[in-house]
């Protein structure tokens, strides 16, 4: 018994030493600003060219925040966005929803193979769709995701602004199918909102509304988060989460450290592994990131080069409309948040990552 206590005490001390050697944000990020260099200037020139608010052409970065191994090594903002602006994340919301669901998964509230209909009754019309299929955007529902180019037939525009806005999950559930569930990838904001409705079913109405805060934001010290819901009270998991760039970087650090926040394993390690595994039936599209479990990967698909050739293959990301991005580069211990207001396709993930690696890889010194 005595020997056991000594071992336990020694282990605790070692663990404490290990944990204290790691850097984590408290109320604010510990800062270690990167000194000026030509590589850093080149990154800043790419991200922040002069803005023309009349034409809105070109790259329009609102915020760029870089974390290395738990320290803030660079940040820059374009007015009116500041360090405290809760910026719209658009489809980064989908990966945030998946992270909230990871906490629920760790609490044993569901399994990936569970039918969605178990938690969301209107999906009894699609009884063979599993939670895993929604996380892969592979429900097989006949959904049209185009935003601006085909507004008449865009499912997502109808969902957010007209026919679907009262109850976005029910609007999605009313779609017909084009494929067997789990067999083909078709990016769908509808799939993400059905996940949000399924989470509501798992938790019940009382716990659901505050669950993202209780499960994820508060443990990480995120104070700027806003998450809008539809008229039925279901959080718009596809599109409408907001937070500051510094706060989104906390989610990046959680993912960088495999779901652990300080001493607490907030997301099971196998959940993060699922997020980071390519969907088996995805087909390569040039320049498009590889779909994982509601996150985006730089893993090449069969017969193709990796989506961002100048970034390491392990790079993964949460991505949103108008250039929103949260990149995680595990081997380099880098987390990069890029918020934007890009109204054209000028901005390239690969180019930003290439210049960020030149500026910061090797420790931001």
């Amino acid at each position, binding site marked *: 018994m005595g020997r056991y206590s000594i071992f336990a005490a020694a282990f605790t001390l070692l663990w404490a030493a290990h944990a204290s050697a790691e850097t984590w944000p408290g109320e604010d990020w510990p800062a270690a600003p990167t000194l000026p260099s030509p590589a850093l200037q080149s990154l800043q020139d790419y991200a922040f060219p002069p803005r023309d608010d009349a034409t809105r052409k070109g790259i329009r970065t609102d915020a760029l925040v870089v974390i290395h191994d738990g320290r803030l090594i660079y940040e820059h903002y374009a007015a009116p966005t500041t360090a405290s602006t809760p910026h719209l994340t658009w489809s980064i919301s989908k990966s945030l929803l998946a992270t909230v669901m990871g906490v629920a998964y760790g609490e044993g509230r569901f399994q990936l193979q569970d039918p969605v209909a178990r938690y969301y009754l209107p999906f009894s019309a699609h009884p063979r769709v599993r939670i895993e299929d929604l996380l892969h955007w592979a429900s097989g529902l006949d959904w049209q995701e185009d935003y601006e180019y085909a*507004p*008449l037939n865009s499912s997502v525009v109808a969902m957010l602004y007209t026919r679907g806005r009262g109850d976005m999950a029910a609007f999605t559930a009313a779609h017909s199918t084009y494929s067997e569930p789990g067999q083909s990838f078709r990016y769908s904001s509808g799939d993400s909102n059905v996940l949000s409705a399924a989470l509501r079913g798992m938790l019940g109405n009382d716990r659901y509304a505050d669950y993202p805060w209780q499960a994820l934001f508060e443990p990480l010290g995120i104070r700027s988060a806003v998450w809008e819901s539809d*008229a039925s009270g279901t959080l718009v998991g596809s599109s409408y989460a907001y937070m500051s760039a510094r706060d989104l970087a906390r989610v990046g650090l959680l993912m960088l450290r495999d779901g652990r926040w300080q001493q607490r394993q907030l997301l099971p390690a196998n959940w993060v592994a699922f997020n980071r595994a390519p969907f088996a039936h995805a087909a390569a599209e040039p320049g498009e990131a590889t779909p994982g479990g509601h996150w985006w990967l730089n893993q090449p698909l069969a017969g193709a080069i990796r989506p961002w050739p100048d970034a390491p293959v392990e790079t993964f990301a949460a991505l949103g409309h108008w250039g929103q991005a949260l990149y995680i580069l595990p081997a380099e211990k880098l987390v990069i948040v890029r918020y934007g207001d890009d109204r054209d396709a000028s901005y390239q993930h690969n180019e930003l990552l290439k210049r960020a690696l030149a500026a910061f890889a090797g420790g931001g010194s």
Partner: protein
Amino acid sequence: MKRVGVVLLLAVLALIWHERLALQAFPGILSAYSAKEYCSCRYVMNNPPEYCQGYVKQYLPLSELLDDPAHQRVTASGLGQSNSAAWGGPRQGCRLLPAQ
């Protein structure tokens, strides 16, 4: 020629019937988008009014954009339709109100 014209007319009518739900909803997109995203730009992201006006600007012009700061409520009108969005709290942000 006449028969081709009739077939074409029938095809167009069939297309309109097939797309009737989308066509009915279309004029509401502009005002709903503008009201919702202006409300969130102004009251969630806390950006200045002039910036938010530019932020929601589309190719099709709005006929009116009314911001009621006392009630944090935004009404947009365009293509003959109006939509309103209102701020509902620090975690809840903005939401479109039921169509009138």
